[in-house]
């Protein structure tokens, strides 16, 4: 029976293929039979080889990962409006992939028995399904099967179960490769080869005979075989080449190329006409090509961000930023560089959200304002998706305009907070957000507030200063942010007692290890038996760095390891300790980021059992540094005199 909810389902479905080919009445009838399913993050919808359900699924909200081979290779990601789990129902076979929610997800389950008649009756629906299966397959003849859509003789080698409504799922797209192949004969000498490779600026050369590939020589071969002195520089190609060549067909997808490279541990693939070494080589595919194809390139992503017209479109770009981050970590690129690039990209996303929110407002801002990132984001140490922490300062305005101005910025902030939520930054559970009237103030109001914290510091005030004093400007007027920073420094200078409170606050973080140097884990709650790397290791360092840098009145450095590096400069007698703090902080940050990527969360809580012995040793080494640092601080500021 048609009702409000089936109507709601229909209104959603009609926007996405193949449902958009159905007429309104049919969509409504279909919608009445739908089940709405709520799944928590990481919930399994079906497993590989499981018998098919009687429904297929449409993602209404959230995202679903499709994985294969128990190796947790993510083959595809479905988000709003995408269909999955349909192919096996039509081909009468078990599921070929596992489907698992990537985040909290609401699904519509559509019974195949209800859907099938529409697919048969409506040729648009049928051909959409055929096309989408075909586009995900290696088999160029799939199209010829189109008249047998519901037969069981569907090519079972195809893995595609997914209908992607456009080409945004890059991983499964055919890859672009370099068609200009540089080759040499088997008689070419190593020296000639090196000259050619340098001239053409390439990393690998193909050795051919009668147009067929017989071997490949890469930079690595020249390094390992010639430069080491194992072979003379006049050795011929056939001696040092890798042979036989691992060849593939040009029809491979990015994911397949990646897997092929991983499997054989090689950096170049040779593509031939039919995929075997018995036909002409038509191209070379390098790891670099794969990276470019994945769009994993900061400049490309920044460009894409600038073109975005809707907040929602930023979410897939953020997903790519995370891929990039993963790649950097895998390649062991220094964390300082990694975090600079990723922070830059994340900031660009935030800026774009603010720009789009401003465009939505009916009028331009009535006064100058600055949007501040607080906490770890303010320190440019936030690489993963976390909660939002932000605040807004606006210019002081005449009293008559105050209320109107306040209202405007609160409205703007609400829009921005919502936008950030949409792109993956959760709402701050402590409401530390600019849309909270407490954190959306004029410059003078801010000054009054921080003066309150500095002159009458209690436990809460110190905590607030910890979060707030690491702010950095995300968007808007730099002067306002600077003016407030100057005021904070002056005020702290006039109220030295504040240091003492800051210091004892900084020393209060819980210890990472117990008496027997064992890790201390959480005793209860959702993260029982997990190690809290943020509270027990990162925060003590960040808090200490803040106190020390404030005591030197150094402005403009909010990043923790940069603070330590600056401190090493300022206090040569403690140089070694500070540098090891900087090092420890970077190591911990990298550790947390890797854990976060692994579990798709903030990485704050670490399952100790999942760590290797070496990792545990590394982690413990940083704790020693923390302890030494805390001793230096407590000696210097002697916070024992007061209690808070």
């Amino acid at each position: 029976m048609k009702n409000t909810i089936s109507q709601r389902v229909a209104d959603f479905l009609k926007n996405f293929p193949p449902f958009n080919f159905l007429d309104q009445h049919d969509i409504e009838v279909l919608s009445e039979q739908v089940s709405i399913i709520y799944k928590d993050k990481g919930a399994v919808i079906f497993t590989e080889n499981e018998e098919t359900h009687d429904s297929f699924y449409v993602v209404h909200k959230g995202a679903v990962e499709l994985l294969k081979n128990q190796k947790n290779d993510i083959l595809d990601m479905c988000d709003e409006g995408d269909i999955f789990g349909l192919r096996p129902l039509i081909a009468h076979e078990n599921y070929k992939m596992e489907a698992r929610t990537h985040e909290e997800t609401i699904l519509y389950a559509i019974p195949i028995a209800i859907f099938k008649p529409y697919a048969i009756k409506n040729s648009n629906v049928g051909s959409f399904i055929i096309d989408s299966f075909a586009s995900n397959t290696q088999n160029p003849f799939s199209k010829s099967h189109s008249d047998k859509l519901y037969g069981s003789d569907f090519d079972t080698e195809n893995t595609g179960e997914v209908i992607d409504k456009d080409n945004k799922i890059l991983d499964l797209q055919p890859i672009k490769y370099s068609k200009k192949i540089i080759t040499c004969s088997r008689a070419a000498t190593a020296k000639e080869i090196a000259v050619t490779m340098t001239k053409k600026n390439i990393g690998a050369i193909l050795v051919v005979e009668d147009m067929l590939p017989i071997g490949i020589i890469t930079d690595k071969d020249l390094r390992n075989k010639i430069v080491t002195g194992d072979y003379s520089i006049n050795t011929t190609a056939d001696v040092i080449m890798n042979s036989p060549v691992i060849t593939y067909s040009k029809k491979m997808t990015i994911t397949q190329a990646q897997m092929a490279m991983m499997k054989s541990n090689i950096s170049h693939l040779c593509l031939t006409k039919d995929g075997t070494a018995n036909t002409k080589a038509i191209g070379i595919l390098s790891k670099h090509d794969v990276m470019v194809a994945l769009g994993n390139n900061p400049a490309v992503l920044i460009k894409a961000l600038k073109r975005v017209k809707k907040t929602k479109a930023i979410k897939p770009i953020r997903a790519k930023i995370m891929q990039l981050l993963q790649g950097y970590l895998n390649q062991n690129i220094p964390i300082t560089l990694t975090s600079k690039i990723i922070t830059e990209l994340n900031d660009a996303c935030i800026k774009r959200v603010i720009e789009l929110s401003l465009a939505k407002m009916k009028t331009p801002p009535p006064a100058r304002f600055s949007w501040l990132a607080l906490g770890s984001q303010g320190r440019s140490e936030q690489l993963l998706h976390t909660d939002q922490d932000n605040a807004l300062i606006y210019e002081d305005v005449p009293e008559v305009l105050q209320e109107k101005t306040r209202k405007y910025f609160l409205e703007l902030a609400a829009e921005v907070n919502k936008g950030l939520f949409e792109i993956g930054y959760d709402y701050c559970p402590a409401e530390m957000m600019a849309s909270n009237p407490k954190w959306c103030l004029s410059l003078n109001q801010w000054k009054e507030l921080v003066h309150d914290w500095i002159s009458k510091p209690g436990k809460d005030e110190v905590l607030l200063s910890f979060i707030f004093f690491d702010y950095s400007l995300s968007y808007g007027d730099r002067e306002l942010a600077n003016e407030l920073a100057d005021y904070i420094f002056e005020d702290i200078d006039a109220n030295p007692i504040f240091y003492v409170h800051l210091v004892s606050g900084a020393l209060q973080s819980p210890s990472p290890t117990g008496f027997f140097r064992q890790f201390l884990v959480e005793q209860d709650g959702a993260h029982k038996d997990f190690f809290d790397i943020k509270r027990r290791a990162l925060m003590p360092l960040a808090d200490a760095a803040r106190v020390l840098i404030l005591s030197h009145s150094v402005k403009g450095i909010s990043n923790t390891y940069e603070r330590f590096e600056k401190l090493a400069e300022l206090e040569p007698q403690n140089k070694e300790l500070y540098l090891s703090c900087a090092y420890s902080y970077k190591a911990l940050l990298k550790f947390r980021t890797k854990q976060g990527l692994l579990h798709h969360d903030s990485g704050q809580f670490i399952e100790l059992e999942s760590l290797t012995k070496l990792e545990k040793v590394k982690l413990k080494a940083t704790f020693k540094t923390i302890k030494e640092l805390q001793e230096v601080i407590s000696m210097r500021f002697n916070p024992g005199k007061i209690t808070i």
Partner: protein
Amino acid sequence: MTLKEKIIESLQILGILKEPIDESLNIPIESARFVVLDTETTGFDYVTDRILCIGAIVLQNGTINVQDSFEHYIDQEHFDKSSVQIHGIIRRDVLNHKSEIEVLQLLLDYLGDSIIIAHHTKFDITMINTALERNGLAKLTNKTLDTAVLYKRTLIKSNLLQHKDHYTLDDLADKFDISKKDRHTAMGDAYITAIAFLKIIRKLKEKNEIMLYQLFR
């Protein structure tokens, strides 16, 4: 009272021994059959105001079957034009309306012994109970949960935060990013309440609340 019972009672008062758990509630939350409902009424007075529409859905193991939903409009003896403007019910097909007693009977069948969930449950339950009484039927005996109350348990406690006393369904929809389409229709609100309930449960699970009885504490 035997000595043993007396000891148990005093231990319970002292908080040493926890009250016994209702066995029917000692099951995972996923196994329970919930009915999430909302009523649209002519106003907020339990005596003079009437129910215009009842919308309800069954929620079990995180799944809502659209087909198995309940949406019935009640014939009004007296029409109050002002509330019609909010709900827009007058625009609906008049043929679909049933008498109050008919809808109540259907509702009782639909409910069974399910646990009722609503937002500000007391209001909806009292409206329904008053209507049942008016028609000579027994009051509801179902166990009830209130998303307005449960939501507050998900909030973190901190000196730095002042929580509101009352959270409206709009507040929850905003916090949980639930579309407010069909807000102020009984079924639309029941749907928003159901999704909000699922999201609340997820948060409470982080605090290790996974059994049904824990929601009633």
